[in-house]
C-alpha cells in the first residue's frame, strides 16, 4: 500500500511539471504549424479569450482543493454583466456600477456559501440550483436585449495593450490575481487550512481549522472574481447581455482539473492550473485559426478533461499489475 501511495504522490507532483511541459510543446507546435498563431496580434486575442477562464479558475482551484465545487460561476458572471447593463441604461455612472457589480458577485457567492456551509447541503446540487437561479435572474433583469455604448475609456483599456508593447492590459489583472491566489494557497496559513479541509474535514477540525468558515469565504471569493469577470467581459465586447459567459463553468472546471487539481480535494497547485488554462485556451485558439468550428472544439475540451483525471489513474493501475 505504502509503495503505491507514494508513487501516486510523486505522480501528482509530476503532473504539474508534465502539464506545463505539454503546454509549452503545444504552444511551440502551434506557433510553428499555424501561420497566424505566433503573431503579436493573436497573442492579444489569446489573452483576451483566456481572461474569463483564467480569472474564475483561480478561486475555483481553491474551492475544488477543499473538496467542493462551484458550478454557478458563469451565471454569476452573466448576472453581473446584466446588472451592469441595467444600471448603465439607468444612467448610473460607471464608477458606481463597477464596485456594485463586484459587491453583487460577492453576495451571490455568499449565498452559495450559506447553503453549503450553514445548511450543510451538497455543493454540487446547491450550485446547479444557483446556476439556474442566477442565470434566470440575469434574464429577468435584462431580458434578451443587449446594452452597448459603454465608455470607450474603459472598453479601450480592456482591449488595449501596454504602451507600444504587444502585452494586453488585462494581462496585468490576470498576473496580479494569479500571484495573489497562488500566494494565498501556497504560502499562507489560509492555504494550509484549505488543503487540510480538502484532505480530511474531520482531521482539520481536530487541528483547530474551521472548515465552514474557510469554505464560506472561498465561495465569496469565487463570486467576487466571477463578478469581476462579468464586468471585464461586458467591457471587452462592449455588450452587456444576460447570456454572457453561458457554459463557461465547464471550461473552468476542465482547466482546473487539467491543471492537476484532484476533484476529491486536498491536492493541486496553482501553477499547474495556469498551465491548464493556457493549454485549453491556446489549443482552442490554434484550432480555431485552423478553421475548426467552435463547437467541434468542445470535443478537445471534453477529451482533455476526462484524460486529465483518467490518465494518472490508468497509469497507476497498469503499474500495479
Amino acid at each position, binding site marked *: *500500500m*505504502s*509503495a503505491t*501511495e*507514494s508513487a501516486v*504522490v510523486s505522480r501528482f507532483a509530476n503532473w504539474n511539471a508534465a502539464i506545463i511541459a505539454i503546454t509549452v510543446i503545444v504552444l511551440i507546435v502551434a506557433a510553428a504549424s499555424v501561420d497566424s498563431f505566433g503573431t503579436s496580434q493573436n497573442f492579444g486575442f489569446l489573452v483576451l479569450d483566456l481572461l474569463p477562464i483564467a480569472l474564475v479558475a483561480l478561486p475555483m482551484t481553491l474551492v475544488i482543493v477543499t473538496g467542493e465545487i462551484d458550478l454557478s460561476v458563469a451565471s454569476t458572471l452573466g448576472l453581473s454583466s446584466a446588472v451592469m447593463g441595467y444600471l448603465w441604461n439607468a444612467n448610473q455612472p460607471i464608477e458606481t456600477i463597477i464596485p456594485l457589480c463586484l459587491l453583487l458577485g460577492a453576495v451571490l457567492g455568499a449565498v452559495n456559501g450559506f447553503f453549503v456551509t450553514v445548511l450543510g447541503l451538497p455543493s454540487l446540487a446547491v450550485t446547479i440550483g444557483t446556476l439556474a437561479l442566477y442565470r434566470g435572474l440575469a434574464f429577468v433583469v435584462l431580458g434578451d436585449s443587449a446594452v452597448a455604448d459603454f465608455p470607450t475609456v474603459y472598453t479601450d483599456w480592456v482591449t488595449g495593450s501596454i504602451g507600444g508593447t504587444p502585452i494586453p492590459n488585462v494581462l496585468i489583472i490576470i498576473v496580479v490575481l494569479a500571484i495573489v491566489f497562488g*500566494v494565498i494557497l501556497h*504560502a*499562507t*496559513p489560509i*492555504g*494550509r*487550512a484549505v*488543503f*487540510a479541509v480538502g*484532505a*480530511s474535514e*474531520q*482531521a*482539520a*477540525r*481536530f*487541528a*483547530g*481549522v*474551521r472548515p465552514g468558515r474557510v469554505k464560506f469565504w472561498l465561495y465569496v471569493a469565487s463570486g467576487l472574481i466571477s463578478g469581476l469577470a462579468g464586468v471585464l467581459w461586458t467591457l471587452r465586447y462592449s455588450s452587456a447581455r444576460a447570456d454572457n459567459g453561458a457554459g463557461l463553468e465547464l471550461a473552468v472546471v476542465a482547466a482546473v482539473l487539467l491543471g492537476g487539481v484532484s476533484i476529491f480535494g*486536498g*491536492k493541486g497547485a496553482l501553477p499547474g492550473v495556469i498551465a491548464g488554462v493556457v493549454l485549453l485556451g491556446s489549443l482552442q485558439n490554434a484550432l480555431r485559426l485552423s478553421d475548426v468550428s467552435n463547437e467541434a472544439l468542445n470535443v478537445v475540451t471534453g477529451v482533455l478533461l476526462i484524460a486529465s483525471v483518467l490518465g494518472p489513474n490508468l497509469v497507476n493501475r497498469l503499474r500495479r499489475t
Partner: protein
Amino acid sequence: MADALPLLRVREVSKSFGAVAAVRDVSFDLYGGEAHALVGENGAGKSTIVKMLAGVHRPDTGSIELDGTGQDLGTPADAKAAGIAVIYQEPTLFPDLSVAENIAMGRQPLGRFKTIDRAAMVRQAAQLFARLGVSIDPNRPARGLSIADQQLVEIAKALSADARVVVMDEPTAALTGVEVERLFAVARSLRDDGAALMFISHRFEEITALCERVTIMRDGRHVSTDLLTDITVDEMVRKMVGRDLGALFPKQDVAAGAVALKVRGLSRDPVFKDVSFDVRAGEIVALAGLVGSGRSEVVQSIFGVDPRDTGTVEVVGKTLKPGSPKQAMAAGVALVPEDRRQQGLLMELSIERNVTLPRSRSLSQLGFLTGNRERREAKEWTQKLKTKYGRLSDNVGTLSGGNQQKVVLAKWLATNPKVLIVDEPTRGIDVGTKAEVHRLMSSLAADGVAVLMVSSELPEVLGMADRVLVMREGRLVAELDRSEATEESVMFAATGQEATL
C-alpha cells in the same frame, strides 16, 4: 456438544500489506455448535483474520477449508455463498432501505414474474426477529436504529442466509449491559443450532461467559488455542502481552502542582452527564471505562470539537468557550485523538504539513509561510520523537502505525501544551513504540504538563496513571488513587458489577 470434526479450518494463513506482515502462519479450527474466542492486543492481526474469512482480503499463503474442502474467498460474495457471515463492530446496513429489505438483500423471496414478494419478505424478517426474541419493525428504515439493533439485524441476516459460520468482530464494544445479555442469548441459540461461532472481544468476562475455546494472537502470530476450562484469565493476559507488565510503564513520581484543567458539570445529552474533575500539573490522570461509556466524547467536548449542553471547562484559570478548538489550543490544550486515520492525521498530506498544521499561524512571518520554518520545526520535533521516515515531504499515510502516532504527538507537543489529552495513545502500535510513548508521557508530566489519558488497556491505565477516573454509561462513577486502582476495582466500577473473572 461440539462435533468431532472441525467445520472450518484456517491453515497457515499469512497476509502482508506492503512491507508489514499483518498475519503470519496462523492456524486454528472452528467447530459446529461451539463458540470460539479470538483474543489479542490491538494490532495482533485479529481483524485481518476476520477480513480473510469475510472475503475482503485473500490470504497470501495458506488456506481456509470448510467441511474439508478448500475455499477461495476472493470476494464478500464468495464468503456469503460459502455460508460465512461476518458481523462487524460497525454494522454495514443500507440506511435508506427497510429492515426487512436489508435482511433479504440478494435473497429476496420472489413471486410472479420474478418480482419481489414483499409480504413474504416482511414475514420472513418478522419470523427471524420472533426467533431472536426481539421486536424490531421490519418495515422501518434501517436509518436511526441503535448500534445494538443494527447488530441484531445483522444477525437476522446471517440467520436468513443459513450461515454455518458466524464471525462477530467486537460486537459488544458499543453495547450496554442489557444489550450485551440479549446479544449473548441470541448467540447461544445460534450456537445450539449447530453454527460455529467466532467471537472477538476485549472483555474476558464476556469470553468466559460465552465461549468454549480461545485462540490467542500476538504480533500477527498464533500463540495458543485452549479450552477455556484449561486456562485462567491471568494466563490469557500474559500470552496476549507476552512480556512482564511492570517494566513497560516507567511512570515517575512527580509532586502534583496547581490545577491545570478544571471540568465542572459537563453534560451532553445523551452521551454524558454531569462530569466534573481536575487534572493538576505534573499528574497523569486516566479516564477509564468501557468503549462507548462516553470517555472520548468528554475529551472531545473539552477540546471543543464536539459541542456541550452545559458545564464549564477552565484551563489554568481561563474559561474556555464551548465549540472552539482554536481557543482551547490558544489556552494550551492539545488533543491526540482516538482515531488516528480519521481525526489525528491528514493521511494524504506530507509529514511536514501534518506536524505544523496547528502552528501554521504562529510560524508565519507577516502572514506568509515560505516553508523553511515549517520544515525546520517538523524536522526538530520528528527527530525528538525518533520518528522513522524517508523524507519530510512523504505522505504521512506511508508510515507505520507507530510512526504515524509519533507524528500526531509531534504535532501537538510542538504547540507546547499545558494540558495534553491523549485518547488511546498506544492503540495499534508496536510494543517498542508503545514503551517510547509511555516514557514520553511520563517525562512530559515530570516537566509539569497535566496529562489526561483515555485508555481501554487496563495495564496501561494501572501502570501510567496517578489517578484513575472511571466512566460508566456517560457518568463519572469512581475516582481511584494509584494505590486503590487494581484490575478488579476498575472493572467493577466500569461495569457496575463484580467482575466474573
